[in-house]
Every structure is written in structure tokens, then in C-alpha cells.
């Protein structure tokens, strides 16, 4: 499928990307997100762009179907009824599952995610999209208030505050993952005790997550 983005993509960064490329990007981010132990950088622009596309196609489709009479019926049936909504359905599924996977991680590691975001300087790319950040903050507050109301309030004074260091759910960044190399990278220090290795394109490796996380952010590798 090849949707032209000319009329909708005003975003500077993506103007030069075709729809297929945007889709590819989402697909890769989606798979990475599902396989990584912790949140990756948000791909909100991609999500927004694709959702907009879906909307456009669906609007066209519903207009088209109301005109779907007479001579054009067959063509419209072939083009709109079958292919495009089915494709948008697929895109929607990917987008939905992508954001869903992220929300689940946010719910699991709420405090950690908020902390991370706070220590970041203005230059670095945020892990959370603005909406995700709001969601995380609300979720955290809501849950903290609930625990306080139900339990902490009833405990001895010295135990009414929860030690963040203890209760924060930290993702296991040492977990092992499989990854595929997208472009050659030299001198990667996968294990501090071992000699650095060179990674060449199309190789598949297993490694701990943390040492290769930067490569993932630079999209030099992808998780498989």
C-alpha cells in the first residue's frame, strides 16, 4: 500500500517520508517496544501521522460509499471497500497495540518513568509523549493517594511515608534480548569484562539489554 502524504503531512521532519516509510518506522518501533524491558523513545509523531492518515482514508471511504451507485460501483468496491479500510484496520491495530504496550509499561514502572523524565535535560529526547506523561503522573498520584487512604494513614507515624527507593518498580535492564544489526557498528562494549566486538549488518545476537540500548535508540539495531 502506498498512501501519499502530500495533503496531510505538514510536519517538517516527516515531509520527505512516504507513507510506507512511516508505516515501516512504526512497525519497527512497535516490535522493539514489545521486546524491550523498558520504554523506548516515544514515536508520537509517527502515531499521529498514521492516525490522521487512517482518518482521511475512512472519511473518503464513507463519502465514496454514499456515492457508490451506478457505473462506479464495481471500481469503488474493489478499491475502497476491500483494500483501504482493511489496510487502515491493520494500521490501527499496530498503532493501538504500540500505545497499549507502552501504557502497560508506564503502569508498571510509573515512578521510574517519571523520575527518568525529570532528570533529563532539555536537549535529550523524552521517553514519554506529553499525553503519556500526564497519564503517568495521574496514575501515580491516584495510586499513591489510594494506598495512603487505605493503608499508610493507618500505620505508625514513621511508616506513613513510602520510601521511593524501595517501592519503585525498576525495569530489569539486564534482561537478555535478541537483536538484529541494521548497519555495521564497530567496537561495541557488550560486556565490560570482555573485549569489544564488531557488529556487522544482518547478524543476529543475544545480549543484555542495557549495553546495547544506545544502539537501539540510534536505530542501528532492531530487536527480534
Amino acid at each position, binding site marked *: 500500500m502506498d498512501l501519499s502524504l502530500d495533503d496531510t503531512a505538514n510536519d517538517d521532519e516527516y515531509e520527505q517520508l512516504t507513507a510506507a516509510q512511516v508505516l515501516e518506522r512504526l512497525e519497527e518501533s512497535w516490535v522493539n517496544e514489545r521486546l524491550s524491558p523498558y520504554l523506548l523513545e516515544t514515536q508520537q509523531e509517527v502515531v499521529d501521522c498514521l492516525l490522521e492518515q487512517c482518518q482521511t482514508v475512512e472519511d473518503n471511504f464513507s463519502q465514496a460509499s454514499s456515492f*457508490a451507485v451506478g457505473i462506479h*460501483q464495481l471500481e469503488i*468496491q474493489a478499491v475502497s*471497500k*476491500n483494500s483501504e479500510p482493511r489496510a487502515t484496520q491493520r494500521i490501527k491495530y499496530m498503532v493501538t497495540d504500540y500505545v497499549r504496550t507502552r501504557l502497560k509499561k508506564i503502569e508498571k514502572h510509573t515512578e521510574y518513568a517519571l523520575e527518568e523524565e525529570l532528570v533529563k535535560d532539555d536537549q535529550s529526547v523524552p521517553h514519554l509523549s506529553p499525553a503519556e506523561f500526564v497519564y503517568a503522573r495521574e496514575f501515580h498520584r491516584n495510586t499513591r493517594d489510594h494506598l495512603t487512604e487505605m493503608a499508610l494513614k493507618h500505620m505508625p507515624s514513621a511508616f506513613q511515608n513510602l520510601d521511593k527507593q524501595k517501592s519503585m518498580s525498576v525495569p530489569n535492564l539486564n534482561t537478555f534480548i535478541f537483536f538484529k544489526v541494521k548497519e555495521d557498528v564497530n567496537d561495541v562494549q557488550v560486556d565490560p569484562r570482555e573485549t569489544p566486538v564488531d557488529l556487522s549488518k544482518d547478524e543476529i545476537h543475544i545480549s543484555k539489554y542495557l549495553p546495547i540500548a544506545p544502539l537501539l535508540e540510534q536505530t542501528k539495531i532492531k530487536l527480534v
Partner: protein
Amino acid sequence: MIVNDILEFYRDICGERVLILVSTTVDGLCAWKILQSLLHMDNVQYTLIPVDGKSHLESAFRTHSDQNTVIVLIDCGGNINVSEELEPLPDSQVYVLDSHIPYDLDNIYDGDVVKVVIPESFDLEVPRYEDIYEEDSENEDEPNRKRRREEEEEEEDSLLPRKERWKRKREELLFTYYELSGYNLSVSLMIFELAWKMSKDNSQYLWWAIIGVTDQYLNCKIGRDQYVTTCGTVQQHVQRLNNHSDSTSVNQMKIKYSNELRLDLYRHWSLMESLKHSSYTASRFRIWTSKGKKKLNEFLADMGLPLLQCNQTFQSMDMEIRREVCGWIEVTAQKYGLDDISYGSFELQYGFKNKYCAGDVLQAVSAALTCPTLDTEAAFLRAQDTLNRSNEKLIHTGIEQSKALCCSLLNQVQAFIDMKQVVCTGPFVYAVIQEGVAELEVFAHPSRLLRLCRYLSEAYCATTRKAAVLPFIIASALPLDPEYSCIVGVPPLSVDSNKSYLGRAFHQAADKVNASVEFEDFEPSVMQIKSEDKAKFFDALTALLMT
């Protein structure tokens, strides 16, 4: 109106949301399975409601038709006046694909809301429009004038006024047209040919169509000649599809023409049980007598088949015997006067293990479809699932139920004969199920009662030859409402044509004595009657058929 081009029908229903009402017959179900796959392929939204009778059809139509402008009736609706009974909205279209004949003439001639799909190849003998429908004399047009000229020429023949003569002729035509009811080509084959014309046919669809056709034949809806002709058509499709499939994968479905014995489910039973219970062999051996049992043993000995082997399940018989036994049976059967113990049929193979023959699958599906413990829709859906390739479990459940039904059939027939409950009135033979609720329930479904009726006719005629020229009738109280009985009838055994005058005769007899009756079923020779009216109905029927 009549639609000859089935493609036109399909084009019309594509792109709309369709309401599909399917009668709960195996043929209807198989037709639906094929149509359903086609609709999925073309992304057509639908609502499916299985219906088991006229009032059910009416209520389902009323509930669901408002939102659908296209309605398809499968294997039903042809022989009722759709415009009058179902009152479709004027801007809707009702397509009728029905194997029951004759069609109600109003469906054919009245307006263009109702469209009866009849492929050109069907030889449909329908009276001409102008012979049936009166026209306003004010605006007589060309054909009328022409007719008048013809009539003027004949004027000397009769002194009756033209109108009166026309009326008489009309009545005569109508009488002849509606006299006999029967079945046309199976609807599942019709839909299969639709798929074929669109190049969307495959072995799966053909297999479903074969089950539909087999239903028509084994349940005596069509005669032998018609079946043989149909098999020829099917055979061509089989060859074409087998040639086209270039895959040699074992999972590929492969259909094969094969000679099939008239022995129920023997592959899933023991040979002995099957020989004992199948109506064909049971009747001819008169298995319910001790002489009959001896004769069956003789028959087996004649083939050189040890009893031990026969009593084993078929699957655990010696390999060699299993392979050869069908041939032996055919040869030996001729010696015993069982000339037509086999008939041409089809079998399906896929994978290494899965081999089914049409007759067995038919039995499994119809056991599910007529299951007394499920309501109509649930039974239909169960049967539909049974037809799915992946549902071996359901097929086996169906086969087990079907075996149980075979046993009940034999028991009931034997009871009728032993207890001398079979009554010959002169123009017909009848029996009434007197048993307890259990039996009433087993035979609650009209199609099961019809099967019992045919079984009885076959068995009874084996002893009383002269009964072969008489129709058979069975009455049975409805298990849920003993105030009412169901009456079914089958045409005489000696008639090869499967057209029956019983439906019409039931109507007339009931009218004459003002009996309280309902003709719920789409099959005309099935009737519900108030139990207390039964006796006077039978009297009237005797009187009517005597003349």
C-alpha cells in the same frame, strides 16, 4: 418474476447488507455454506436466520427485514405466496432459491419484488401468464387480441361464453400445476454453479454441493434418473477441479467418484449392525423375523465372511477383508435379489487419515440438524459446524447420534409390524406411533418421521407386495403438545417419480371435514392436525383417494 441468470442475483446482493433465511434442510444448509464463503470473500455483510417452517419464516422475516432491503430465501419460500404471506416492503427485493416445486405462481408473475432464481437449464413447466391472470377488459393489448382471434376460430367448438371457458381452462391448468409436489435441482448445486461461473469454485464447495445432492437422493426427494443425471454434472466438476489442482499436498481435498453400498454408516459401525439396521437390507431380509436373521447369516456365510469379523467394528476387521468386502457384498447380493445394493456416490479425502463418503457425512449432518434436544437455530448452527473440515469431533458425534437413530427406526418399524399396527384402508396404508414420550421425541422432527415412513413402506412391502402401489402415512403426537399430531406421507414405493399428490390430498381432505390443520413445513406432505380430528381426517382422505 423469474431470474434466469444466477449471476444477476449475485451482483444484486453484493454491496448491500443482506438478510438470509435458510430452511433447515441439509440441501439448504449446504447451499448456505457455499454462499457464505462467497459473501465473506466479497465482504458482504449479512444476517443469517435458520427457519424451520412457514410461521417461523414469517416471524424471522418480520423481525429482521426492516433494515435489509435485500432478502434471500434459501430452500424455502418458493411454494408460498411471498408477497402475501411475508409482506415485503415495496422497495425491497426478495430472492427465492428453492428446490421445492411447484412454485407459487404469484411469485413468478406478480410484480418484481419477489424474484425466483431458476437457472435456464431447469425445465420449468409453468402455465402462461394470460391463462391464469385476468386482465382488465378496458385496456386490452396486443397479446389479448391475438388470443381472442385464436379463440374466435375455435368458437364453433363450444357454446360457452369466452370468459367462462377461460375460467374453466384456468382451473384445470391450476389443478394440474399444483397437483404434484416434488423437488427440482438441489439449491446447493445451484449455488456451487454460481461459484463456478465466477471462477471461485473449489473442492470444498463442491463437496458441500455433493452433500446437498446426496440429501436429495437418499431422502427420496429426487428419483434415481434425476440423481444419475445430476451425478454426471457433478462428475464433470470433480474432474475439472482435480485436474486443476496442481498441488500434490496430502492436505489437499480430493473428491472421488465411488460406488457406495446402501448400508448405513458401516465404516463407522460393524458390518453386522449396519446390515441389520439399514432400511434396504433390513427390509429385504425381513430382519425382524427369525427367518430373516437366519437368511442374513446365510448371506454372510455365502461370502465366506466369518461372523466374528462381521461383528467387529469395521475399522478393526482384517485389512484384506476390509478392502475386498464391498465387492463381495455386491456380487453376493445379486444372488439374493438385492440388485441395487449400490449406487454411485462420492468420497472425500484429505490428509492421510481423513476419508469420508457423502452418505456418512450426510447422516452425521442431518442427525445434528434434526436433533430433538436442540432448538431449530441451535441445531442448524451445530450442523453447520459439523460441515467444517476442522470439526472431526462433531462429525463423530453426529455419526453416533445417527447410529442411535438407525436403531430407533428399526425398533419402531418392527414394533409396527409385530403389533400389527399397520392399517391398510384401501387407497393408502397408515400407522400411528403409540409409544411413550421417548419415541415421540426421537421422531419429533418431520424429516425423521418421513424417514420412518419410507422405512416402514419398504419393510411392509417386503411382506405385502400389493402395498407397493399405495402411499404410506404415519401420524405421531407432538411431544411438546399432544393435543396435536404430525402427519406425514410418502408416495407409493412402485412409483419411481418422487412427485407426490399427498400434500394436495391432505389439503382437500382436511378442508372437506373442516379439520383443524396447519401446513407448517415447507414439504407439503407434512401436516399438523388437532389429534381429535385425526379419525375424521383419515375417513375423508380414504373417501377422497378412493375416487
